[in-house]
């Protein structure tokens, strides 16, 4: 390949920060859906507490990942030029907004903090997350953003 990979700006020793952080929100929001389902099935308050913390952690790390991603996105026209870049960025902003609203729903007390609005929001968040993650992975694995050049 002769075309150089678009580099990541927010990187430590060539390792993109964004790629390092994104697993956290992906895992947290996915597990939050599972713990919501567990609460729905068992009424055990423990699962609701798990969901609340998972959403909280996902938001914190997701916010940091978004910052790093935004730096790469805004500082490199080569990144913005990639076809999946815009839908990936906008989709993930929506994911974070959904997760934030979901946190407020989960901050309620008792059954209705999860069933049904919290559960639905968790599911929609994860579905949208699958799309944005797919787009994000294609930016790395197909377009090589942030991948080191060994030419």
């Amino acid at each position, binding site marked *: 390949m002769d075309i150089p990979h678009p580099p990541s700006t927010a990187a430590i020793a060539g390792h993109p920060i964004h790629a390092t952080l994104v697993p956290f929100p992906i895992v947290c929001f996915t597990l939050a859906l599972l713990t919501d389902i567990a609460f729905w099935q068992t009424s055990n*308050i423990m699962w609701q507490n798990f969901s609340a*913390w998972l959403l909280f952690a996902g938001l914190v790390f997701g916010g940091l990942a978004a910052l790093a991603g935004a730096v790469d996105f805004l500082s490199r026209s080569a990144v913005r030029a990639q076809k999946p870049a815009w839908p990936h960025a906008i989709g993930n902003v929506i994911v974070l907004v959904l997760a*934030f609203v979901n*946190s*407020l729903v989960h901050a*309620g*007390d008792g*059954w209705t903090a999860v069933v049904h609005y919290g559960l639905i929001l968790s599911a929609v968040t994860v579905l949208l997350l699958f799309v944005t993650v797919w787009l994000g992975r294609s930016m790395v694995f197909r377009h090589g953003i942030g991948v080191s050049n060994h030419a």
Partner: protein
Amino acid sequence: MHSRPASLRASALAGSCLVLLALAGCDDGADFDITKQIGPDPVLPEPNPQLLPDMKVAEVIGWQAGQTPTVPQGLAITPYAKDLANPRTVHTLPNGDVLVVQSRGPSVEPVSRPKDVIRGWIMSIAHGGGGGPQKPSNLITLLRDTNRDGTVDERSDLLTGLDSPFGVAWVDDTLYVAATDAILAFPYKLGEMKITAAPKVLTPLPGGPIDHHWTKDLALSPDGRTLYVSVGSNSNIVENGLEAEKGRAAIWQVDRETGAARVYASGLRNPNGLTFQPETGVLWAVANERDELGPNLVPDYMTSVQEGAFYGWPWSYYGNHVDQRVHPQRPDMVAKAIPPDYALSSHVAALGLTFSMGSALPAPYANGAFIGEHGSWNRNFFNGYKVVYVPFEKGRPAGKAQDVVTGFIAGDQAHGRPVGVGIDGTGALLVADDVGNTVWRVAAADGSVTPRPIGTDRSAAASAGNGSAPATAARTNAGAVAPSVRQGEAAGGPAPSASIDERLTGQEPAAPSSRSAASPEPPPMQVAPAVLPEGTAQGAPAQQRQ
């Protein structure tokens, strides 16, 4: 601290209101006429849970020299005692000495969710003491007005180092103190200024490790034999699980001789202000109802406490209004729930109750109840933060609540917040102000006083003394049985660890199948919330339930 905005909406997240509108709406209920929720038959709007619950708490600024709350014509208000450390309740002994119970919460509530951290920070503003070291609290101070002129002549710390005390009662040379985890009995003769003797633990009460509603109020029955103690719930609406609610959201009846206890009434989320109505001898209480159903739900209330009655918490409120947040639902418990007698409007946080009968207050206050309303947090417009008066006739409320002591709030700041109320040794009203660190005295403006002191416990036994064993004495904790299996399942968790119960009763929990016709009542701490002992029928004589 000084530049902090006087009131905080829950956060800088207000902008998200637009997003939230789609889900829940941001109706703040400002156009609701709150007087429709004062009286025996309150208007209850549909629940309106908000994504961002309204949180408006007044920043505490205290009282400057010369500042006082406001009272209507015919009354005069003066500071009775200042420089206290979070005074919560006042109690007048038969000789006219006033005990001021000062306490802080045990602060043992674990952080279960991210919400707890944020809320704790906002609440700390409401309770003041944000900066600098605080005076040690958790003590009982004795105030003596030797010449009965309405000013305190002698002051002495009677007891210190207590564990979040709230209610007290005195009879038979014994001072009973309801700390947050036990009723303690101290030997105490009237007139003494200090107690050094170690207490006897009369009855353990549900304390930590959560202890969400920690104030345990105390009242002595008119015959002097029985103590009644209020035990608030361990959560807003069982978000800590049903297992955390054993023995809670209830008023216990405790035999003064043996310490044997049983649940007298249940389903009361956070009852306080236990007081016997002097005309009828019926026990009354005020209770704080649940939060986060909107600014105008659920009204706090004052009610007579009927033996064996269930008042709804957590499954319903005001009779059959089901709280959808509690799952699984319990239609059988909702069917049992009875509505309280008199609503005080939502989120006023009624914590104190006393009856005026026999006091030296002017005629408009001759027969009724004074109620201390600590004030709201879960609404955008302050409610409460005052002492109101509800006139009574024939031992029942007869008329609208009217403001008596106001002016605790100034704009978005609070000088103080009223909690416990009581009648002092001269027949004037005392109001404990827990963040203003003051006890206020509200007297007839013409200075009239009662011919002799009347103790808070208007019990013949409180002055005479009566040692005969009451009928309930035989019902001890021995032979305890575990609560029904069904309750364990309702909590959705594994079988509860019996460690606490075992320690208290010295009993292994019996097999659930041990229930039989002769099944004795379980001790209150083995009773899941709002569950009455099997065989408890309203009005059935206690002796027959052995």
